[in-house]
């Protein structure tokens, strides 16, 4: 992994970041810098304003008749947007222990056991910190697991699958409020169950959602983060 990104590098990339065309890796590194540098954030905000105003230049056209009712139909028949409920502190400790236990249970190889021990250490540090759980839902709104997040330096997520997701390997991706993507890693699912943990390249309040994506690039599961 490269060294810390400098302000100069981020300012050079800022126009592409603002336009949403910066390559993924560069974007992720820039986001880490932006999380701690208000000058660069201000610069990026200004350029984002320019990018936004460009979109306003496209002329308006009325869509064909019936457009509005077609949209309302789609909204009414689709699944409700997920609601988020913060877990009570008393429950948190129990859940943390459960995750750690599950992580150990599914640790087949010694490599996995090492990983599970790593989770446990990180989870222990989570005691007393902000902690929240979000449902992971499929396209039909059914819950397939949870994403547990805690704010720290760096922030962490643990993804726990407990539903009916098909066995296989899935990419775990983070989408920021700026619309940028960051690959967090992969999770192996066996009989609907799997666990995954990762530090985040951005602060928790910059996360819009976590996605699980299958081999075909299909967006399988989502956990929506509420706005801060």
């Amino acid at each position, binding site marked *: 992994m490269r060294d810390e990104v400098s302000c100069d590098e981020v300012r*050079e990339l*800022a*126009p*592409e970041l*603002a*336009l*949403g*065309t*910066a*390559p993924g890796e560069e974007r992720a590194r820039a986001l880490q810098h932006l999380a701690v540098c208000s000058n660069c954030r201000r610069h990026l*905000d*200004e*350029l*984002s*304003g*320019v*990018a*936004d*105003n*460009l*979109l*306003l*230049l*496209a*002329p*308006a*056209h*009325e*869509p*064909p008749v019936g*457009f*509005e009712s*077609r*949209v*309302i139909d*789609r*909204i*009414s028949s*689709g699944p*409700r*947007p997920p609601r988020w409920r913060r877990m009570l502190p008393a429950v948190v400790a129990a859940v943390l222990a459960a995750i750690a236990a599950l992580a150990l249970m599914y640790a087949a190889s010694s490599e996995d056991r090492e990983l599970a021990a790593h989770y446990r250490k990180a989870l222990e540090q989570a005691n007393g910190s902000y902690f929240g759980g979000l449902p992971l839902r499929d396209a039909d709104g059914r819950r397939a697991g949870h994403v547990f997040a805690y704010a720290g330096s760096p922030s962490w997520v643990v993804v726990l699958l407990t539903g009916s997701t098909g066995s296989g390997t899935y990419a775990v991706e983070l989408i920021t*409020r700026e*619309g940028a993507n960051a690959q967090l890693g992969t999770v192996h699912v066996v009989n609907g169950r799997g666990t995954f943990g990762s530090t985040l390249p951005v602060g928790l309040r910059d996360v*819009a959602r976590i996605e699980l994506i299958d081999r075909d690039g299909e967006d399988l599961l989502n956990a*929506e*983060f*509420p*706005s801060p």
Partner: protein
Amino acid sequence: MWSLSDESLLAGLASGDPESAAAFVRRFQARVFGLALTIVGDREYAQEVAQETFVRAWRYAAAYDSRRGRVATWLLRIARNVAIEAAHLRRFEPMDPEEIVKLPISSSDAGPEERTIAIDESQRLRQAIAVLPEEQRRALVMAAFYGWTSREISESEEIPLGTAKTRIRTAMLKLRSVLEVNDER
């Protein structure tokens, strides 16, 4: 409904209020469809893009943060991303950048607070774009509307990657200085 701010309509949409949802769509449908049409160039396709844009707006309404900009621009960003995802634009011939900058400003469907701000800003922006060197304008439009990366622009224009990045950056910085006189967010 006609006097409600964009934010309150969006909040109504987010909470599932059907009247707010309908008013929200009516207020922005021309802008959203217009941008979709500009990018994908086909009416049928643009309709699908516009529909999907409102569905996503409903799903992600809770994620809207007014500190990041106006509702209209948030919505148009979604529209642009949907259009780019859906149309595999890297294979299409993008609309002639000259056409985009020639097109008249249409603000008749703007919400109440937009009426006074948008026209002046848009005029200044159009003028600033018009005086950009042609290659900078082209690179800017390719990136801003069609989501072309610097690498894709450099390959299409047959220029070094660094040159593509510089064209975009120079254009963006010029436009920023034009807008910063009256930056109201």
